[in-house]
């Protein structure tokens, strides 16, 4: 019985690939039970990898090294520009180089708990096991991690972890890891095992006889649409945070590849799980095109406050101490300004909704370093946060040494994604999904420094080992270019392109995207209500209708046409946004990164509901009303507990 | 390197003019009869001439290659341009035009003071006379051209010396900063040293 009228219930879904037995032996068991492909047969097998971020480039390079023939696609002009490049903080690994009690089991435990008991134990344990190999691999590639004077790798504690297990390269860890993977990829390009297709966007998945057999791509420079057929397709196409229009994601990040696969039958799991980061630079006006993240470490020394009175227009320095509300310290005396991301984010939005926000539009709270400067001196503060302060000043024109910073939460990461089994294979045989694009290992909330770990784990170590079990049945029968499925996929792409170009509209794509983003942020952001989500679904449907009626796309299809690219992506965001709201509506519990107003404790804290919602929600596309397939979660090793930060 | 050393030696030699006619002519004579009677007449000069011509030819040839590559590497030029902001600024920006000025000057200079084709003093051993008459006040355009040329040479050296050391010296940041100073010093000394002779003659300090 579905809980509301927006969806129908389907059969449960199960991960049939994860071996039983002791958790620490499952990965080894699976590698042994999975079939292998003879080295001489690998070159007869073609694998398409879409995306060149950490998960895509590492997978393409590794599959190339193994001897498969790989076609690697990205929409950017170079594989090195994938958005993994922007990750700042670091990458976790259970190396226990600090001798501070870390272990594979502790990283596993922290990650399951951090995900608020909405991830699979088997997957998370594998992630923790593989984490140590990732660091070895990256160092061998020449990634310049931070080191100590003795020449050994430096570690830090990140995101409130009690152990120092985070490896980093200044504030540009993602960049350095991605360049390592990119260089490994280019090496395979030179070796002839990987064919690289830049400025190509995947617009359709080709499914033949129930197997994923290829993709339809559009050459973004010439506009030509072509089909490539292969034995398996790997999507490493990242997250969908840009459904909110304003997010910390790159402008090009989109859900189209995943969404096209979803429309072809792949389940979309937990779409409402998004992560909102509390310390971003607020928007400065209607021109705002994206939000910039600042490291969470700022909260170690900065104090968060807003004026006590609503609508207080005075400059921050003119507001006396007695008229400031240090609301995190007040509400969470034990953790103060260091409460977890979701709590800090929600609290900021709450005070702004009360009308006490600061800066343009009242969408911001102060992060004040005056006390830290008085206590430590300006030089010490500069040594710790100098580059962040410089970045803040570059963007806002305000000097944070003299005036408190303004911060506001922003969408940062999406834990949901295409459903995959232990082998990272979706419910469509031959379609594999890695990195942020799958629903993965983070449950309902991702720990800091775990995204890079998961992307590289999937790409370097997991997928190359699991995909062979599928490819052992190949090479699969040739698919002719005029095969019915190929022709249909191509026709659907061309129809869409023609539709946008010929639509007699009067509104720009961005204007719709902005409006969709506002709806999503307001009703499907960090705090959700039954009423709000129902309203949002209605608003999205109306706006989608208007989009198809009024959207205006200039230019032609036979050239570089950035508006046309955006139109297709926004069209898919509309459908995704609706599914996110349906998912959020049905999950009537507060959990992980988000708060459901109807599910809270007496003192206003989040209440998870394990009785009713300890499952993965895997959605099947079915036109208007999606079908829900539940995958029950079992916790043998880490027993669910409620979080408390009081 | 050979060219730079030659320029410095040539400049130092020129300063003999301040010691009077005899000293200057002795110096010029000494260059011709260096090693005599063991070596044939002008043997040092010929070794130097061949060496210099070879070095200059290699220098010009590689600059032509670089220039041609530079032109091909930017087939469409910028509409809007900003002044140079790099290491040796204007010196770097004037390498090619300055080189042409220097090249034209070298031709003139040889015709003037070496072969005397365009110099009023045809008596080859009288180097002093050639300088004094060549830069006589009434021949002021010659002096102006000469000054422009040594200024161009100075600019050329300013960037050239630094660039040569940068290419050879490797990634040492300390040395790069020092080289900037050295290159500037070489350029200023050479320019001043060359400029002082014609100026002195033109303004009648040497006659």
């Amino acid at each position, binding site marked *: 019985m579905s809980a509301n009228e927006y969806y129908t219930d389907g059969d449960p879904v199960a991960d049939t690939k994860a071996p039983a037995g002791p958790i620490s032996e499952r990965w080894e068991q699976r590698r042994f039970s999975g079939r292998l492909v003879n080295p001489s047969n690998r070159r007869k097998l073609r694998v398409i990898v879409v995306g060149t971020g950490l998960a895509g480039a590492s997978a393409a390079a590794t599959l190339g090294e193994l001897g498969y023939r790989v076609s690697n696609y990205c929409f*950017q*002009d*170079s594989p090195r*520009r994938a*958005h993994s490049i922007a990750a700042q903080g670091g990458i976790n690994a259970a*190396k226990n180089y600090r001798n501070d009690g870390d272990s594979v089991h502790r990283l596993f435990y922290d990650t399951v708990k951090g995900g608020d008991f909405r991830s699979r134990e088997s997957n998370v344990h594998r992630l923790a096991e593989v984490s140590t*190999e990732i660091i*070895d691999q*990256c*160092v*061998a590639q*020449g990634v*310049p*991690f*931070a*080191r100590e004077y*003795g*020449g*050994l790798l430096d570690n830090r504690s990140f995101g409130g972890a009690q152990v120092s297990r985070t490896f980093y*390269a*200044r504030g540009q860890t993602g960049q350095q890891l991605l360049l390592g993977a990119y*260089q*490994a990829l280019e*090496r395979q*390009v*030179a070796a002839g095992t990987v064919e690289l297709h*830049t400025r190509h966007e995947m617009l359709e998945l080709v499914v033949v006889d129930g197997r994923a057999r290829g993709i339809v791509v559009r050459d973004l420079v010439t506009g030509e649409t072509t089909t490539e057929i292969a034995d398996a397709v790997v999507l490493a196409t990242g997250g969908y945070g840009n459904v909110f229009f304003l997010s*910390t994601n*790159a402008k*090009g990040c989109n859900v189209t590849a995943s969404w096209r696969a979803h429309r072809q039958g792949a389940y979309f799991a937990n779409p409402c799980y998004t992560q909102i980061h509390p310390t971003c630079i607020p928007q400065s*006006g209607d*021109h705002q095109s994206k939000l910039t993240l600042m490291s969470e470490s700022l909260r170690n020394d900065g104090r968060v406050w807003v004026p006590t009175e609503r609508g207080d227009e005075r400059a921050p320095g003119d507001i006396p101490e007695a008229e400031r509300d240090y609301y995190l310290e007040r509400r969470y005396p034990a953790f103060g300004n260091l409460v977890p991301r979701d709590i800090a984010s929600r609290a900021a939005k709450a005070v702004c909704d009360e009308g006490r926000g600061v800066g343009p539009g009242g969408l911001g709270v102060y992060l004040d370093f005056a006390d830290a400067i008085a206590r430590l001196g300006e030089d010490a503060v500069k040594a710790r946060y100098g580059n962040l302060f410089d970045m803040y000043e*570059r*963007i*806002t*024109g305000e000097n944070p040494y003299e005036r408190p910073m303004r911060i506001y939460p922003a969408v940062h990461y999406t834990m949901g994604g295409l459903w995959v089994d232990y082998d990272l294979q979706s419910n469509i045989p031959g379609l594999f999904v890695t990195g942020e694009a799958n629903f993965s290992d983070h449950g309902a909330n991702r720990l800091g420094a775990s995204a890079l770990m998961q992307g590289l784990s999937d790409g370097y*170590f997991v997928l190359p080992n699991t995909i062979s079990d599928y490819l052992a049945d190949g090479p699969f029968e040739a698919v002719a270019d005029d095969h019915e499925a190929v022709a249909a996929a191509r026709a659907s792409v061309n129809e869409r392109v023609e539709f946008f170009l010929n639509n007699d509209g009067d509104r720009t794509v961005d*204007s719709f995207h902005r409006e969709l983003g506002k709806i999503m942020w307001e009703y499907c952001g960090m705090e959700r209500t039954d009423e709000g989500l129902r309203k949002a679904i209605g608003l999205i449907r109306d706006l989608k209708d208007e989009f198809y009626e009024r959207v205006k796309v200039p*230019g032609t299809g036979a*050239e570089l046409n*950035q508006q046309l690219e955006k139109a297709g992506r926004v069209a898919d965001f509309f459908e995704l946004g609706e599914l996110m709201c349906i998912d959020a509506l049905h999950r009537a519990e507060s959990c992980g990164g988000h708060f459901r107003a109807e599910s809270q404790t007496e003192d206003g804290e989040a209440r998870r509901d394990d009785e009713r919602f300890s499952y993965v929600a895997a959605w099947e596309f079915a036109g208007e009303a999606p079908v829900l397939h539940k995958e029950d979660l079992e916790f043998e090793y880490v027993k669910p507990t409620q979080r408390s930060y009081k | 390197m050979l060219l730079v050393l030659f320029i410095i030696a040539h400049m130092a030699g020129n300063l003999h003019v301040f010691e009077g006619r005899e000293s200057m002519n002795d110096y010029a004579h000494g260059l011709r009869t260096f090693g005599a009677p063991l070596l044939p007449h002008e043997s040092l000069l010929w070794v130097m001439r061949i060496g210099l011509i070879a070095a200059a030819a290699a220098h010009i040839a590689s600059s032509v290659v*670089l220039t041609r*590559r*530079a032109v091909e*590497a*930017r087939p469409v*030029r910028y*509409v*809007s341009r900003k002044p*140079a902001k*790099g290491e040796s600024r204007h010196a*770097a920006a004037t390498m090619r035009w300055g080189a042409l000025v220097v090249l034209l000057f070298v031709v003139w200079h040889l015709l003037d003071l070496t072969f005397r084709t365009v110099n009023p003093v045809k008596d080859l051993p009288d180097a002093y006379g050639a300088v004094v008459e060549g830069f006589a006040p009434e021949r002021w355009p010659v002096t102006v051209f000469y000054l422009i040329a040594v200024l161009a040479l100075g600019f050329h050296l300013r*960037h050239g010396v*630094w*660039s040569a050391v940068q*290419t050879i*010296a*490797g*990634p040492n940041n300390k040395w*790069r900063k020092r080289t900037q100073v050295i290159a500037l010093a070489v350029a200023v000394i050479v320019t001043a040293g060359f400029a002082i002779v014609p100026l002195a003659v033109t303004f009648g300090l040497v006659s």
Partner: protein
Amino acid sequence: MKLKLRIWRQPNPEAKGKMVSYVLDDVSEDASFLEMLDVLNEQLIADGEDPVAFDHDCREGICGACSLVIDGQPHGPQAATTTCQLHMRKFRDGDIIDIEPWRAGAFPVVKDLVVDRTAFDRIIAAGGYISAPTGTAPDAHAAPIPKQDADAAFSAAACIGCGACVAACPNGSGMLFMAAKVTHLGLMPQCQPERATRVLGMVAEHDAAGFGGCTNTGECASACPKEIGLDVIGRLNRDFRKAAARAA
């Protein structure tokens, strides 16, 4: 503020481009340079004109996609800042701003302000890597690296591959880009075996791609948004000399 923009418009690689003037009446000084162009494009679409194509992605200064020559300077007037992080408060009301693409034979214009920088990828493919196939790595602590070397390697590895160095170089040389990679890898003990082949391969590919030669003008370093210095070029020259001597 009110601005007059003169922007390079070129519909396709074959077409002859030209500068076209546009006027924007109400630009917020809090907008970034690219957001200002977004506003222009919204206006152009509304007026039924073709919007200006330009490359951009992360808009936080790290992906290296944005690539505009603003008033003759790659990434504009603010030092150590990519175009996407440049904000309009650096300009004044009534300014006339020229916007052009990177200009280099090795970076042909695709459309308007978008250029093709795949030549950089080819240079990396010609040796800008360490051959360390997945699974072959020893423990990360097997070879300590002095902090000083690791820091210097990082500074060179901070290159975002935007190509501003090429755009700024009067010779259209890609030396700084290439040298940054040679330096990053050259400082690591694990990449010594390929040090000679790397520099020879990369230089050969660089020259074949049609980049100009380096004459140490230093324009590259002053345009580099990540402040990569000329020391990397010194290192490349040294490595190249040694490798070439050994190969000869």
